[in-house]
C-alpha cells in the first residue's frame, strides 16, 4: 500500500465506478502506462464505439458531459504529435486506478 500525496474527491471515484466504459478505459491505459495510445486502439480493446470512447475521454455534446470526462478530470492527458492525438494516463490517474481497485469490493457491496 502506497502512501498517497494527492487526494481525489470520493464523489468522483464513485461516479467512475458507476461508469463501466470510463473504468475500462482507465484500466487499459493503466495497463500500458506510461505508453500512450490512440482512440481507435482504445475503442478496440475496451470493445466500444470510438465515438463513445471519445465522449468518455473528452466529452461529446449532450451525451457525455465534458466536465466529467477523463481528460477534464485530469486523469488522462491528450498528446498531439504529428497531427495525431494520443491518450495517456496521468500520474494522478494512476493513483485513481489504485483507489478503484482497492475499493472495488467495498463499492460493489456498499454503493
Amino acid at each position, binding site marked *: 500500500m502506497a*502512501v498517497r500525496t494527492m*487526494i481525489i474527491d470520493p*464523489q468522483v471515484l464513485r461516479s467512475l465506478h458507476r461508469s463501466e466504459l470510463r473504468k475500462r478505459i482507465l484500466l487499459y491505459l493503466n495497463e500500458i502506462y506510461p505508453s500512450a495510445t490512440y482512440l481507435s486502439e482504445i475503442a478496440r480493446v475496451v470493445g466500444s464505439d470510438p465515438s463513445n470512447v471519445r465522449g468518455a475521454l473528452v466529452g461529446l455534446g449532450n451525451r457525455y458531459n465534458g466536465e466529467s470526462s477523463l481528460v477534464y478530470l485530469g486523469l488522462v492527458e491528450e498528446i498531439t504529435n504529428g497531427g495525431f492525438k494520443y491518450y495517456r494516463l496521468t500520474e494522478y490517474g494512476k493513483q485513481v486506478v489504485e483507489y478503484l481497485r482497492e475499493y472495488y469490493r467495498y463499492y460493489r457491496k456498499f454503493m
Partner: protein
Amino acid sequence: MDTVERLVSVVDSNIEQMVRMAILHIIQLGTKHGIFKVLSREPTYQEVLDSVGLPNRRLLLEFLNTLKAIGIIEEKEGRLKLNGFSCTLKVPQEHYDSLLPGWVSTLEEIYRMVDYAFITPTHPHVLMDFDKDADFWDIRMTTDFADLYRKTISVAAGLGQGMSVLDLGCGSAAPSYFGRIVGYDGFYTGVDYSSAILEIAKSRAETDNLPVELKELDVRLIRPVNEYDVAVVSYLLEYLKPDDYGRVLKRTLETLKPGGRLIILEPFREEFKHIEALEFFEKLNKDFVGFPRRNDVIRTIEGNGFDVSIEPLGRSLLRVTLMP
C-alpha cells in the same frame, strides 16, 4: 535512525498545525456565513440562530459553542460578545521540515463539507460516516501523516517480526502496515465496527497476502482470548465516552503478556490549545465525542489496578508497559 522522541515530535508539530489551520477555517466560516456580523451586535443565542439563515441550527449552535470554547466570543448576561480574540500562527524554523502535506488536502475536504452540513447533516456531500463514506476515511488513513503515526506507534512499541498485535479501531490501512511488520511468525488482530472499512482492509491484506485477522465488532464489547505483545489504541478514544474507554482499556490491558505494551496515540486535549477548533470539524462524524485528556486516561489506567509503568511521550503518545 528515527527515535520515538523525534517521531512523536513530528506528529505533535503536525497536529499543532492542524489545530491552527482549523482556527483559520472557523474564522473563515464565521465571516462567510455572516455569523460574526450578527455577533458584533451582542445578540443572545436565540437571536443568532434566528438571524443567521442556516437551516441546520444544531450545527450553528455547535459552531457558537466552539467560538466560546476557543475564546473568540464570551457570554455575559445571556448575550454573546466578540472579545478581541487574537492568535499567532507560528511555523517555527525547526519544524518546517516536519510538516507533512498529506493531511492538508483531507482537512480541506472536511472544511468544504461544513457548508453542506449547515444545510442538513445528511447532505450527500458530507462524507464522514464510517460505513457510508469508508472510501473517504481510507483516503484519510493512507496519507503521509497516518503513515507517520503508525511508524511512531511501531517504534514506540518496539514492534518486530514474530510479535503479536491487537489493534482496536484498526481502520483500513493499519492492518497491512502492522501485518507486514510482524510477518508470518507473528499475528495481528484488528477490530473495527465499520464493516465497510474492514472490507477495504481485507481486500488490501488479501492482495498483499498478509497474515491478519479482522473482526467486525464494537470495541466496547471486546473480550479478547489471546495474549498479545502489543496493543494499539490510536485515534479511537475520541469516539468513546470516558466510562466506555475505561472499560475498553481495562480489557485491553488484560490481554497483554507480562512486559507487553499498550500504545495510545491521541491528540490529548490539554496539550493542544484551541483543539476545539479541530473538534468542530471532526464532529461531522456523528460518533465523535471529543479528544480525551491525557490525565484522565492515565487516571483511568491507574484506577484499574494493573502493575504498569506509564510513560507520556511528547504531547500525543502514552506508552503503557505491563510489569513482568
